[in-house]
């Protein structure tokens, strides 16, 4: 590791869900997939909207909007595919986004004590601050746990 690598600020993919922006560590992001068909079938797992097929793999799609902004995704036709840690292995998952993603770097402040478990911290940008998502923690929560996020969106 050289000196440049050790001092470079971490990079993040900024994405929009509903009317809010969130950040995902760029090293967890696999790709921004174009609009593809969402396949649905019966299941009882909370927060899962269905699956997409991408590059020969079946990728589960999380209804992150219900959790993060308090309502199901609408008008979000692209899929951000990212790695999530499950036990000691990693698996892929996707969340629906509107396609407007950007790469940004900045300092991350630790999450406040009252923040939800899926918030890994707050990314300080030049003109804004956005919550950094802990993608691995998202699936552990039911939509009913989203009251905090719903409140935040109504404030924005």
């Amino acid at each position: 590791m050289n000196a440049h690598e050790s001092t470079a600020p971490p990079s993040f993919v900024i994405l929009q869900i509903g009317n809010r922006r969130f950040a995902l560590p760029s090293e967890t992001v696999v790709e921004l997939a174009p609009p593809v068909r969402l396949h649905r079938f019966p299941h009882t797992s909370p927060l899962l909207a269905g699956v997409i097929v991408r590059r020969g793999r079946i990728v589960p799609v999380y209804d992150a909007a219900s959790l993060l902004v308090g309502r199901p995704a609408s008008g979000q036709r692209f899929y951000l595919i990212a790695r999530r840690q499950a036990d000691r292995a990693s698996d892929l998952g996707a969340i629906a986004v509107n396609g407007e993603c950007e790469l940004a770097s900045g300092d991350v402040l630790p999450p406040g004590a009252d923040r939800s478990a899926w918030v890994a911290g707050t990314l300080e940008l030049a003109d804004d601050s956005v919550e950094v998502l802990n993608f691995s923690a998202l699936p552990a929560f039911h939509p009913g746990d989203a009251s905090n996020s719903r409140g935040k969106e109504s404030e924005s």
Partner: protein
Amino acid sequence: MKAPGELRVKPRRTHHPERVILFYVSGQVFAIAAEAVQEIRSTDSLAGAAMEIENPELAKVRHTLERGRQAYYVVNACLHFYLPVERPTLLLILRDLPVAVLVDRIDRMAEILAIYPLPQAFAGEERGWYRGLTYLDDTVIPVIDPAGFLSAEEYRSLDRSQKAGSGSSELARVVQS
């Protein structure tokens, strides 16, 4: 680049194409191995052969059916998969299990080359419902696990209801959990 510990989701390829029956329940298509189905009958043709069974704990089973010397618990697939209830017209009588499944309609038979494991994110009852997923004609279709229609505890509960109702159990069958 493959991340350390990343799960490689590879389909379970069969040595030979597997024949499946595609059927619909409440607008949702499912696949089941053709060899798991002994017989397909219309509900009308079996109306006289079905007997009511009362088990308030298990709404998806309301009838038993006698075919030959074998009795079957009739599972309403709409209720099993928590789908809106429609009027089923067909009964899939399973092979090797005392289960018959009410479905809406048969689509067709098909051959599948691979079954993909259900992604780990699916952690609910569906892990018992499905053998996995298959991809056919640009559609992801869940492949039914016939053993998932009734759990061992559900068999025991139904057997108790059966005994209470008739004094004898035609379906006393040990099903390992």
